[in-house]
């Protein structure tokens, strides 16, 4: 598994790739990582979205920033690589509220998660695992070979805890 190439996805960006590949994104606060994978053809994509919808900012060309345009972009990308929408499964992580004393960030995180779920439902894509909410940031690694999503979070003892969903 260590042979797989790791590709890092920046904030508001997305990547689609075939097996073998591990898609990585760092520092998800209220942002959400949406990971889609065609389990039969082993093609997957990850988008690091920042906001629920692009409608409020039409001129913005960074489609990976928004749940609506970002999810569409990875679905299209997977299909372009020969994947099938029918076989897609989703795993999502993020949507935390990092600053405790701020209502604003709480709203963005949960609104992002809500928007992502709504859009996946509209596209008939099932969420098979999620790690969302809370007040800790996350980093994730999505393995296209087996669909494992490794979630890293700051835990006690100044250590980063890793869970696999």
């Amino acid at each position, binding site marked *: 598994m260590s042979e797989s190439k790791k590709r890092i996805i920046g904030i508001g960006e997305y990547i689609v790739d075939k097996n073998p590949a591990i898609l990585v994104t760092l*520092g998800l606060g209220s942002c959400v990582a949406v990971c889609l994978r065609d389990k039969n053809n082993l093609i997957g994509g990850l988008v690091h979205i*920042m906001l629920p919808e692009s409608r409020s900012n039409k001129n913005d060309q960074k489609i990976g920033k928004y749940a609506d345009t970002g999810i569409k972009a990875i679905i299209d990308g997977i299909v372009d690589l020969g994947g099938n929408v029918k076989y897609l499964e989703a795993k999502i992580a993020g949507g935390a509220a990092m600053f405790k004393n701020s209502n604003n960030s709480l709203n963005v995180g949960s609104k992002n998660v809500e928007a992502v779920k709504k859009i996946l439902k509209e596209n008939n894509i099932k969420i098979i695992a999620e790690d969302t909410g809370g007040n800790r940031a996350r980093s994730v690694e999505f393995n296209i070979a087996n669909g494992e999503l490794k979630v890293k979070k*700051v835990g006690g003892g100044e250590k*980063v805890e890793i869970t696999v969903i």
Partner: protein
Amino acid sequence: MSIYDEINEQKLDALKELGNIGAGNAATAISTMLNKKIDITVPSAEIIPISELWEEFSDPEEITAGAMIEIGGELHGAILFLLGTQETKQILELLKLPRPEDLTEIDEMTSSAIGEVGNIMCSSYISAISNFTGLNIHSLPPKITVDMLTAIVSESSLMVTEGSDFVILIRTDINIEEYERNVKGFLIYLSDENNIIKLLKAIGMGTNNE
């Protein structure tokens, strides 16, 4: 064209210079607080696309303490002050506060001490901007968090700008008397495009963007 394409070396130098003035004020304030000679320098100021943020730090997942101070008044934005785990402990020790075993589980007292140091650093920068530009601005109370470095930066940027694509990264070196190692920190200026234009105009570096 985005305003960020127009921020050239000269404009970044101006922002760095404001950083130097602010750092000078902050050094004086912290020196008085600690009763030690302190020197703060600003080695660089850069403008960074938020999507490439992770490339800027040697360990983007380092556990970091962050204090964000929002700017109120005629300019909207915020300044974020970041210190790594060891650096935060060094500063707390200098403040004669108990050195926390675990930075991720700090009490109110430690959290507010971190907020206070951040407040001094950021407010000094904000008052430097205010003095220099004549804009009527003030700092709001600090918001504190301890988490992974890039997450703090992107989250703060999102809270303040609602999705701006860039941040201005100002590195700071804090030199403390009797301490061999510099305490390295980051000041990050968060602002949307309109407010950057306003700020640059106020320091006499208007753009053709309007």
